[in-house]
């Protein structure tokens, strides 16, 4: 699932960011042509955390970081304090039944740091997945980043109800969108099938 991501030719346009534009970033095969600014960000993270973080991809305006659930809080704190990302745009849960894991992806952005205005840092972490979920009371748990990024509050609530990932330390782990009497599987898991499809 770790991405390769050809740079689309649709976005071939002159850039106004400090680094010169790089047409392609083939992360898997030829990693030598990474965009410099984004590379700098990922390098800082690797420098600080070593092998606790894996650089998922580095491409134009996007940096992808993967880390384990034990380290995600520290990494997020570092991203906020030292890299100056100040808000989370979204919290996404992706179900991977093949790996028996659920990935939670935070898309982080920055309003205050003007050089980071174009950037989105993708912070991904994974929680174990259980085939018979009891949301909130099984091992599918992650530390909440709500005390680091306040803006993840509703996003984490949504991930909790949609995928059954309980966030430890979240002050308000309640349903948000689903009906109050929802008693089925968390609906965005892959084993929740839509009727007729």
């Amino acid at each position: 699932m770790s991405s390769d991501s050809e740079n689309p030719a649709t976005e071939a346009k002159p850039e106004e960011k400090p680094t010169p534009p790089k047409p392609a970033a083939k992360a898997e095969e030829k990693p030598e042509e990474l965009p410099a600014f984004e590379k700098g960000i990922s390098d800082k993270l690797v420098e600080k955390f070593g092998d606790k973080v894996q650089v998922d991809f580095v491409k134009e305006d996007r940096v992808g970081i993967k880390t384990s659930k034990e380290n995600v809080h520290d990494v997020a704190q570092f991203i906020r304090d030292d890299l100056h990302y100040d808000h989370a745009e979204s919290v996404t849960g992706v179900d991977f039944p093949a790996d028996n894991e659920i990935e939670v992806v935070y898309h982080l952005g920055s309003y205050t740091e003007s050089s980071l205005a174009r950037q989105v840092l993708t912070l991904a972490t994974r929680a174990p997945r259980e085939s018979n979920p009891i949301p909130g009371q099984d091992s599918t748990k992650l530390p909440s980043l709500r005390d680091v990024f306040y803006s993840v509050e509703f996003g984490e609530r949504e991930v909790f109800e949609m995928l059954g990932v309980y966030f430890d330390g979240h002050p308000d782990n309640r349903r948000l969108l689903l009906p109050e009497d929802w008693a089925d599987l968390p609906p965005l898991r892959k084993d929740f099938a839509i009727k007729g499809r």
Partner: protein
Amino acid sequence: MTDIMPPGLALKKVDERIMTLNVGPQHPGSGHMRIVVQIDGDYIVACDPDPGYVHRGEEKMAEYRNYITNVPHLERPVIHDSCNVLYPYVLGAEEILGIEVPERAKYVRVICSELNRCIYTMYWLAIYGIFLGHSTMFMWPAGDRELLIDLMEKVSGARVTHAHFIPGGVRNDLPANFEDVCLRQVNYFEKRIKEYAAVFYDNPILISRTRDTGVLTRENAIRYGTTGSVLRASGVDYDLRVKAPYDVYEELDVHTNVLKEGDSYARSKVPWLDMMESCNIIRQALQKMPKSGSVRTKLKPNPKTKGPATVYKRVESGRGSLGCYIVSDGKTEPYRVKMSVPSFRNLLAMPNLLIGEKLGNMPSVYWSLNYWPVEADR
């Protein structure tokens, strides 16, 4: 699930002074959502937004359809902003499918996107007017909106649900003589919305009612992760059309409207200023657009992807930054589509702004957050 009770069902023992109001979903001032409000006298002491009444599972549905058939249903969350709500998905799908978009199609997209922003904002403004009890401000935008809806009907054939943007360009070319008609309508539209100042934005009662209510400071606006007009009304100069331009916005001169106050008056004024800016952008785009050429890269009905990938694309919609995160596993259907919608992000500011306000300020603060319940639920 004992400690995880849904909102409203968890009956806590509260003071006898406190009255709990269920504002919505059948309430003229709530939209398609519920706000559980606790008031002490006239002051709101607790506020718990409860969206989800129009949750349609768009993200789940998107996992079952291929990249082309996802187009018509992914615009449903905000049908009156349907071009913009599709825009990030289309950009992401183009990256995953590896398609190039013709230059003229990019300009058509910009024009449609700006027209749709105005259509959305007029609708929003109409509801803002009636929320404040100003019935003229309900009727005028709802009527003037027709000008632009007619334009979009000429372009796409549908009045509201256009499904005009598709991976590879736009569905069809602009009709003949569109530039003149568009220019005329947009000029008249701009003249009309400038008249709104006299009846609405300069109205002393409106100003005294919305000034200094629901103040969102710059720090809190950033902390809550708000976006769009809410953010710009709090003094943060952040517009994706300028900061991270997509398609041809880079070649256009876009001015960002920023107000410092952060109260509901500023939040209601920024979208209005943005509409005038949209008119400017449309005029520029009409001028710079290539006069002829293809508007669409042909695709097969069930196009193949280029292998596993993740993309996250953002555009500036009528409500703010709208992101689309697509995970592809190489099949013809997306593995996961996540819409990071501005309404959902702005919703977080609502309980924080409403607590401590008067009940009479609830509609103005709530709707000034540029919030569209259907979009937040997806």
